[in-house]
């Protein structure tokens, strides 16, 4: 375990995000309605800085010709190509083999801690396809 302090909890209220560089990895921590999610600041498709992306919802279909707003506040859209990833698991909605790298994150004594050795997910196209 390689835990690093990201920030104080009061600096990460619900709806906000913090991006830090720790152990030469850029990691973003999102507070989604009280739940903390840590991801690597890199889109597995083409390397875009994911943490610059819009956190929003999306449209899903329950049947032919039907549209419904869903996953409000859980969809992170890549700032370069608009790919949608659903947090907290980081799975791509549009090409499911692709997965954001996520890290274990917890709160201890008013500090947000990320385990920089816990990253898992896909980093390349080849990885995503296997």
């Amino acid at each position, binding site marked *: 375990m390689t835990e690093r302090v990201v920030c104080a909890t009061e600096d990460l209220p619900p709806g906000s995000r913090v991006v830090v560089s720790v152990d030469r990895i850029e990691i973003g921590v999102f507070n989604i309605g009280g739940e903390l999610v840590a991801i690597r600041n890199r889109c597995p498709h083409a390397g875009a800085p994911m943490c610059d992306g819009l956190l929003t919802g999306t449209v899903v279909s329950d049947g032919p*010709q*039907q549209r419904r707003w869903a996953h409000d506040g859980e969809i992170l859209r890549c700032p370069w190509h608009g*790919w949608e990833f659903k947090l907290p698991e980081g799975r791509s909605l549009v090409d499911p083999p692709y997965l954001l790298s996520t890290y274990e994150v917890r709160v201890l004594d008013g500090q947000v801690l990320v385990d920089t050795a816990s990253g898992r997910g896909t980093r390349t196209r080849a990885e995503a396809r296997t």
Partner: protein
Amino acid sequence: MSAAGAARREGTELAGDDPARLATVSLETAARGGRPPACAIVDASVHVRPRSQAEFRAYLPRLWKTRRLPSGDGYYYPNPAGNHLRETYSDAGPPGSDPDLLHRHLITDGGVDRVVLHPLTLGLLPDIDLLGAVCSATNAWLADTWLGPTHDRFHGTIRVAPGDPVAAVAEIERWAAHPGFVQVGVPMQSLQPYGKRQFWPVWEAAAAHGLPVCVHADAETGVEHAPTPAGYLHTHFGHAAVAPFMFVNHLTSLMTEGVLDHLPGLRVVFADGGFDLLGPMMWRLDKDYRAMRVDMPWMTRLPSEYLAEQVRFVAHRMDGPDDAAVAGEWLSMVDADRLLVYGSNYPNWDFLPPGLVYPDAAAEARERILHGNATRLYELDRGETA
């Protein structure tokens, strides 16, 4: 042979209005060359027509029997090579009207085992009831004239007018149980792309009966859109090269409106060629699907991923590179051995003989294009023991 020789000797004479003497392409010449395939052959695109107006009108109900019909010849591009192969003209009727002659050309002499017949209708007519009657009569005529027990190598196309979905569905229901019909035929020309919701009942009916929907350029009566969004090209040369690309609009529409997701069993066949545009088109669509998916949440796959299960193209003489070395690479790049079915386009001048279907491709790929893909698509081996 002597007739062909005579026509050549008369080459500098005025041919007048005799279409047989305007036909410059001979079946015998067109069928030469290439590499005759070793496998059985299915010809998936052959065009037939009645011998005469009288033969056709016999199948119209009294209501329409004495009604004038538009010629369907609002065709703006006379073909300098003539429209049909020279040998397909006969005293008995126009090209593609004589079952025995067609049988001899394609099956006896041509080595084809099974033929899918696709008669054209009158494209789009302003009077949709008249068009429906023409489609119904065409189907009854085809069943009587070509699909009887004496012609067990011939398979038919149920012609419908999607502009009247209620009548089109009724027509599919009327013929679906007839063993001779293997697909539903609709015009390439349409005032709306085929993914639009008004057409869904037609595609649902076809899918429910396991009948592929075949899209083919039909007769033109003057109520279609212009052949290109920029208007009219100058000559037949440009028109014939560009017209098949209309498939792009229908295919993109069927994907983005959700038809292919809604009907996983639907098979769509584009029968005018244009397959060489499919690869680049899929690159374009795949690229932005991920960013745009939110606009069509019913679309669950990358555009290119629908093709293998739901889309086929009839091979056309004009498709693909001439260079055999390039052609091999291109064919494997675009999954041609899974997506293409052979069709000759007989009796039209741009006839594609089996021997010229990618003669340098691997034997297995040729077998699929010339036989296997169409056999599975149309379930032509149904009822045969394995």
